[in-house]
C-alpha cells in the first residue's frame, strides 16, 4: 500500500496533483480549483501554498471512469445496495460517473423514478449518477415507456434499456430505436432471445452437458444483435449493445461498423477474464447473465476491445444478498459485483497483456462511454478549463480482494481471495477528492452541495 | 522390509508335521470326524484349514466340509484405518448349525481376530461347539481367549514380529521371527 500521499490543507479549495504521468505519457503537475482544472504544468513549477497536495510519483492520471452499466438497486432492493453504497463503491473503483440501470422496484420507467435516483446520487455526492430509463413500461416489453418525459426530466435521461430483459419484439425494438432520435437518445439492448434461453443456467457448451446445467447458447445473443444492427441501419438510429459476451457477437459488431451502422458496444471486466469452466465448482458466485463463456470468446472480446470494435468497459455491477448466492446453482441469482475491481481486471486482462496502453484505457473507460451516454463534463481532456473528474492509479500495486472489505453492501465478487494488479489511489469528482490512498473520504453535506450539479 | 535380525521358527517340513499332529488332535477329541466343519479365518487361515481338512479326510476316510470366514466387518479396530477390502466368507452347504466348528488361523496374538470370528460365526448360525486351532501362539493376549490346538508356542516380545508364509498364497511355507517393531502390513501378523 502506498504511503499517505495527500496532505490536506483545511479549508483549501485548491488541489495540486504533483508528478503524475498524464495518460501514462508526460509528467505534469495538475492544479484544480473548485470544480475545474486551472493548471497543467511541468512538474516542480507549481506553487503549492494553501493547497491540498497529492504526491503522484509513479502514478498515472486518467480521466474519471464512466460506467455505462451499473445496478444500484435503489429503489426496491436496498438490502443488496443503495445509491449511496453503490456510488461509494464506484468512486473507490475510480468512476466519476455511473449509469444506473432501470430494473429497480418500481422500475425506472417514469420521470418520477429517474428523478428520485438522480437526486439520491446528488445527495450522496460520490460520483455523477445518470439514471437509465426503461424502454418499456415495467420492462414487460409490451408498451413503450414515457421516454420523452424521462429525457426532459431533471435526470436528462439519454440511455434507455430494459436490461435484465431483452426487447425481443422486433416491432417494439424498431419503434424504440426510431422514437429516441428526437432527443438524441440511445437504446442499450440486453441481447438475449428469451425462448432460446428459458431456464438457462450457464454457457451452452461441452461443460454444460457434463454438469447437467441448462445451456445459454451464444446464438441467443448473436441473433438479436444481428437483427438489431440491421434495424438500426434501416431506421438510421444509434444502437448500443450491452455486455457483449461471445466471439460471434464481436464479429457481428465489427461487420456492422464496417458497413457504417451507428452501433456501439460494451464488455464487462469479468467477460475479459473469467471462463465457463469456473461453473464446474457449482459455486454460484460464477453465475451471471450473460454467462461466462469459453477461452476463445474471452480472447475475441479482448481483441475486440483492443481494436475498438468494442467501445467501452462497463461493469454490469450486480449486487445480490448473501442468501441469493449461498445456495444451489439453479436457485441462485445471476450477477457479480464489479465497480471496485473493474480497473484491476482491465489491467490484468488488457494492459499487462499488451493489448491496451493507458490512453486506450482512458478511451474505453472514460472518453467513449461518456460520448455514448452524452455525459457532458465527463470523459474530457485533462486540460485547463475542463471539469476536474480524474482518477489517479498505481499500475504496479497489487491487492487481494476481500469480500468483507468492499464498500458495496453485497459480497458477491467472483475474485474473492484473488490477487489483482493495479490500484485506484485517488478519485476526484468535480474537483472534490472523494478517494484518497484508496480509501473513501467522507464528504460534508455542505461540500457536496457546494460543488454543484 | 524388516531391519532387525530374522530367524526361522518353522520350516516347511515342520509346518507339515505340526498340521498333521493338530489334525490328529482334532479327531481324537471329537472322537471321529462326523460333525466337523473346519473354517479358516481369512486370509492365511484358509489354506491351513484346507490342509487340515484334507488330512482328516485321509485318515478318517470321511468327507470333512471346509470353508472360509472373513471377519473384516466384525473387527473392533475399523475406525483406526481406512476401510479395508473384504474377503469372502464361504460356508459349506450344510451350514454350521449343531456342528463342531474348528476355526483355523495362522497366528494367535491379542485374540481380537478370534473374538471377531466368534461374533461373525454367531450371526451365521449356531454351532454346538467351537474350537480354535492355530499354527503359532505368540502370547500377549488382550482378551480371555485361548487356542485348543497349537502348532507351536512361541514366546515373543512386543518388539518382535511373527511372519507366516503359506505355499498357496506366498509360494513357500515358512514362519519367521523378526526383531523390530511390528508394522501394520505383512503376512499373518494377527491383531
Amino acid at each position, binding site marked *: 500500500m502506498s504511503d499517505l500521499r495527500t496532505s490536506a490543507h483545511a479549508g483549501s479549495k485548491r488541489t495540486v496533483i504533483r508528478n503524475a504521468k498524464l495518460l501514462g505519457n508526460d509528467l505534469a503537475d495538475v492544479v484544480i480549483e473548485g470544480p475545474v482544472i486551472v493548471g497543467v504544468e511541468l512538474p516542480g513549477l507549481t506553487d503549492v501554498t494553501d493547497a491540498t497536495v497529492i504526491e503522484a510519483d509513479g502514478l498515472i492520471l486518467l480521466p474519471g471512469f464512466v460506467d455505462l452499466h451499473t445496478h444500484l438497486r435503489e429503489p426496491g432492493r436496498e438490502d443488496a445496495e443503495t445509491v449511496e453504497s453503490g456510488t461509494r463503491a464506484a468512486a473507490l473503483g475510480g468512476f466519476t460517473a455511473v449509469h444506473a440501470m432501470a430494473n429497480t422496484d418500481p422500475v425506472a420507467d417514469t420521470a418520477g423514478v429517474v428523478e428520485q435516483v438522480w437526486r439520491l446520487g446528488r445527495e450522496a455526492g460520490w460520483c455523477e449518477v445518470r439514471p437509465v430509463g426503461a424502454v418499456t413500461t415495467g420492462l414487460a416489453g409490451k408498451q413503450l415507456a414515457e421516454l420523452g418525459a424521462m429525457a426532459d426530466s431533471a435526470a436528462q435521461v439519454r440511455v434507455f434499456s430494459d436490461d435484465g430483459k431483452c426487447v425481443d419484439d422486433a416491432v417494439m425494438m424498431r419503434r424504440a430505436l426510431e422514437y429516441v432520435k428526437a432527443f438524441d437518445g440511445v437504446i442499450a439492448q440486453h441481447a438475449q432471445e428469451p425462448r432460446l434461453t428459458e431456464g438457462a443456467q450457464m454457457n451452452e457448451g461441452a461443460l454444460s452437458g457434463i454438469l447437467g446445467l441448462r445451456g445459454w447458447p451464444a446464438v441467443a445473443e448473436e441473433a438479436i444483435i444481428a437483427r438489431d444492427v440491421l434495424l438500426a441501419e434501416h431506421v438510421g438510429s444509434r444502437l448500443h449493445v450491452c455486455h457483449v459476451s461471445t466471439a460471434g457477437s464481436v464479429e457481428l459488431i465489427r461487420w456492422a461498423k464496417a458497413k457504417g451502422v451507428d452501433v456501439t458496444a460494451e464488455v464487462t471486466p469479468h467477460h475479459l477474464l473469467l471462463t465457463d469452466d469456473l461453473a464446474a465448482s457449482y459455486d454460484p458466485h460464477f453465475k451471471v447473465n450473460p454467462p461466462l463463456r469459453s477461452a476463445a470468446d474471452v480472447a475475441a472480446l479482448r481483441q475486440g476491445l483492443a481494436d475498438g470494435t468494442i467501445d467501452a468497459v462497463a461493469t454490469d455491477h450486480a449486487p445480490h444478498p448473501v*442468501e441469493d448466492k449461498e445456495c444451489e446453482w*439453479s436457485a441462485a441469482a445471476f450477477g457479480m459485483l464489479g465497480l471496485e475491481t473493474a480497473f484491476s481486471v482491465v489491467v490484468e486482462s488488457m494492459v499487462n497483456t499488451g493489448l491496451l496502453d493507458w490512453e486506450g484505457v482512458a478511451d474505453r473507460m472514460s472518453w467513449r462511454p461518456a460520448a455514448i451516454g452524452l455525459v457532458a463534463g465527463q470523459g474530457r481532456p485533462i486540460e485547463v478549463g475542463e471539469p476536474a473528474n480524474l482518477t489517479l492509479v498505481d499500475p504496479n500495486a497489487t491487492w487481494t480482494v476481500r469480500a468483507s472489505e468492499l464498500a458495496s453492501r453485497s459480497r458477491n465478487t467472483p475474485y474473492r481471495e484473488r490477487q489483482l494488479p493495479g490500484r485506484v489511489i485517488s478519485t476526484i469528482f468535480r474537483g472534490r477528492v472523494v478517494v484518497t490512498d484508496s480509501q473513501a473520504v467522507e464528504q460534508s453535506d455542505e461540500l457536496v452541495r457546494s460543488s454543484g450539479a | 522390509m524388516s531391519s532387525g535380525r530374522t530367524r526361522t521358527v518353522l520350516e516347511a517340513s515342520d509346518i507339515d508335521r505340526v498340521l498333521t499332529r493338530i489334525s490328529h488332535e482334532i479327531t481324537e477329541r471329537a472322537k471321529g470326524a462326523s460333525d466337523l466343519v473346519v473354517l479358516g479365518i481369512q486370509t492365511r487361515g484358509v489354506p491351513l484349514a484346507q490342509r487340515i481338512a484334507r488330512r482328516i479326510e485321509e485318515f478318517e476316510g470321511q468327507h470333512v466340509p471346509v470353508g472360509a470366514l472373513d471377519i473384516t466387518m466384525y473387527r473392533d479396530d*475399523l*475406525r*483406526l484405518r481406512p*476401510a479395508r*477390502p473384504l474377503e469372502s466368507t464361504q460356508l459349506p452347504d450344510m451350514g454350521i448349525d449343531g456342528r463342531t466348528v474348528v476355526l483355523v488361523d495362522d497366528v494367535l496374538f491379542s485374540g481380537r481376530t478370534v473374538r471377531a470370528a466368534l461374533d461373525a460365526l454367531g*450371526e451365521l448360525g449356531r454351532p454346538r461347539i467351537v474350537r480354535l486351532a492355530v499354527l503359532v501362539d505368540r502370547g500377549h493376549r488382550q482378551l480371555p481367549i485361548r487356542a485348543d490346538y497349537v502348532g507351536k508356542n512361541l514366546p515373543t516380545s512386543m518388539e518382535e514380529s511373527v511372519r507366516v508364509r503359506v505355499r498357496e498364497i506366498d509360494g513357500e511355507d515358512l514362519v519367521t521371527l523378526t526383531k523390530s517393531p511390528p508394522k501394520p502390513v505383512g503376512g499373518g501378523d494377527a491383531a
Partner: protein
Amino acid sequence: MNKHLLSAGDLSHEDALLILDTAAQLARVADRPVKKLPTLRGRTVVNLFFEDSTRTRISFEAAAKRLSADVINFSAKGSSVSKGESLKDTALTLEAMGADAVVVRHGSSGAPHRLASAGWINASVVNAGDGTHEHPTQALLDAFTLREKLANGQGDLAGKNVTIVGDVLHSRVARSNVLLLDTLNANVTLVAPPTLLPVGVQDWPCSISYDLDAPLGDCDAVMMLRVQGERMNDSYFPTAREYSRRYGLDTRRMSLLPEHSIIMHPGPMNRGMEITADVADSKRSVIVEQVANGVSVRMAVLYLLLGGIPEEGGATNE
C-alpha cells in the same frame, strides 16, 4: 476412495472395482439368517431427499440398516423460492444432529457439490441423484449387474458393448453410466433423437447413433432410459407414438439382440413408451435384479466411506 461420492467420474478403475468386489461380498448377507453386519453400528446416515423417490430411498435405507447404522429420513420439498433455506439451513440442522453420512437427492444439479464443499457439514456426502447431472450409485449397480451377467462377477467390463437408449439430455443415469462404463473399459453407444443429446456429446467417451436398430445386433446389454411424454410439449419429439416407434424397445427389436444380451432399466418404467410390457417382463430383462443389486452396492459405498477413517487422496488401500 475419498470422503464423498459425488460423481461416477471421480472413481478410478481401482476404486470402481473395489466397490464392485465389496458389493459382491456384501450381497451374501441377504442370504443369511441374520441379515446384518455390525460394522456401522452407532453411525448415523441421513437420507436427505428433496425429490420424491421411494425406491432409491428404501434402497439406501436397507443398505444402511444392514450395516447396523441408524437411519434418519428427511423428506424436504425444496423449492427455488425458499432458496438457501432449503439447503444450507437443512444442512446445518443435520450437522447439529451428528450425521456421519448424508445421502442426498435434489432437483438441482450440483446441490451435493455445494453440500460437500460449502463447509456447512462434516459428514460424507453421497449423491443419490442431482438434477440432470449424475446418479453414481445407479451406475455402480448397473455395472455390478452387467458384471454378474456378462463377466462372471469378476474384473471389469472390457470388450463389452453396452447400448444406452433414451433422453440422454435430461438423464443423470446416462451421464454416470457413460463415465463409469468407460472407466471399466466397456464400449458404450448412446442412441437418441438429436434433440435429446447434449451439445458436446461427440466428445464423450462413447459412440452416438440416431438409429436404434443399428447397434442391437452386436450388443451385450441394452439399457433403456425413462422418457417423459411431456417432452413432446417442448418439441423434443413430435408425439409419444413417433418416439416409441423410432426409439422404443419392442419384441421385434429384442429379437435382433444376441442370445446372451440382457435388458436393463433404472426404473421407473414408462411401459409403452420406451419399453413394451412384453420386453420388460421377458426373461432377458434383469430389471428386478438391478433393484436387489442396488442394496449391495449401496452397502459397499456406505462401508467404504464410513467403515474406516477417510483416506488422503486416491484409491489405494493397505
